[in-house]
């Protein structure tokens, strides 16, 4: 019988993620695609805790715990070591949160991308610094509550456009994915495995305690993010060819996505209108870049 996803489980249960953690599902799906011949470089983030205490590890592949800002440079070093050893059939993966990617790790990532080091950089994006108690990051969306953007002063800046920053580096492969579309996620990682050079994959991973959502809504939220055009599913080749994987012709109003999340509960009607306008404008821009406008 053909299964919708690879049957193998590289990751084991027993890990320390919260109930309904999107980031845990992201890792499970990613390792299904990447397989056991993978090495992970993980900076300080929720995943350094989820994995469990030494000498235990839930991922069943070598995992290098590294400093917050060094996911990409550690992965570059691991790749260099494999090259010296003459081993080519190993996936070297930098696996970082949005804080470790959009903020503090951007320099190491930009360096690796500029050298076109042969690594896969995966950012699991839960849109804040969750491990240290929900502080804002450059990936936190417009209007969201976090402990450093309290309800009286919710985040006034939109999410940083990381995908365009990476596209400007002209790396061979960039993709966005999310857990509600696991076949799409697995296909993109399989493509990243086969591509030489720096690959960047951004995976939206809802976080119940950080987003103030019900654990059972994790997958639903991930789907609504795509269906409301908040999170477009994209592939970009060599920074130039933009491909929109799912052209959402009849979008769900953004409010449907926002209203399930406690971090947006303080928003008034005009705030929601402003967010909807921002999402519409961004979508137009994406359509133009994909040659669809």
């Amino acid at each position: 019988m053909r299964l919708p996803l690879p049957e193998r489980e590289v990751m084991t249960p027993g890990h320390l993620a919260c109930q309904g953690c999107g980031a845990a599902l992201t890792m499970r799906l990613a390792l299904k695609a990447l397989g056991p011949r993978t090495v992970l470089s993980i900076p300080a983030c929720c995943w350094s805790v989820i994995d469990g205490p030494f000498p235990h590890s839930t991922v069943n592949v070598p995992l290098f715990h590294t400093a917050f800002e060094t996911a990409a440079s550690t992965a570059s070093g691991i790749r260099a070591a494999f090259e010296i050893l003459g081993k080519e059939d190993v996936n070297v993966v930098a696996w970082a949160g949005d804080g470790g990617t959009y903020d503090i790790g951007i320099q190491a990532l930009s360096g690796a991308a500029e050298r076109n080091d042969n690594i896969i950089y995966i950012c699991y994006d839960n849109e804040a610094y969750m491990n240290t108690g929900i502080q804002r990051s450059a990936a936190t969306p417009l209007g969201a509550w976090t402990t450093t953007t309290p309800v009286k002063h919710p985040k006034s800046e939109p999410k940083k456009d990381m995908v365009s920053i990476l596209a400007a580096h002209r790396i061979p492969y960039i993709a966005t994915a999310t857990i509600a579309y696991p076949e799409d996620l697995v296909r993109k990682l399989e493509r990243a495995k086969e591509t030489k050079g720096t690959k960047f994959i951004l995976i939206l991973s809802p976080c119940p305690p950080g987003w103030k959502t019900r654990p059972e809504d994790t997958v639903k939220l991930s789907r609504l993010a795509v269906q409301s055009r908040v999170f477009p599913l994209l592939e970009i080749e060599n920074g130039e060819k933009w491909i929109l994987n799912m052209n959402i012709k009849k979008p769900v109003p953004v409010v449907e996505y926002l209203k399930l999340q406690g971090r947006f509960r303080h928003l008034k009607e005009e705030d929601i209108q402003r967010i909807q306008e921002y999402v519409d404008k961004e979508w137009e821009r994406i359509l133009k870049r994909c040659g669809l406008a």
Partner: protein
Amino acid sequence: MKPWKPDIDRKMVFKSVREYPPMAVSLYTMMFNKTGTWRTVRPVINYEKCVYCLMCWKFCPEPAIYLEPIEVKGKERMKPIIDYDYCKGCMICAEECPVKAIEGVEEER
């Protein structure tokens, strides 16, 4: 069959740093940590209703659902089985099941 090996579910305890293995790679999985104790609601699959679409298996973040081959009306199918040793009761499976074959039962402790 469970995709992970049950013989690796022991916990390693060291009395002092000197007992640590001189290596940087973990030797054991997290399977000693039976996260089933976290559960307040238990998802129960009603196999009379199940259409074997495997949505529940696809979306389990643990993974605490594994598959076993069975025959349904002469066709090969995969049956999803919940491993209650590890299921944390997030209820994503029940939410995603298209035919509402998974029911939440309150745990009593």
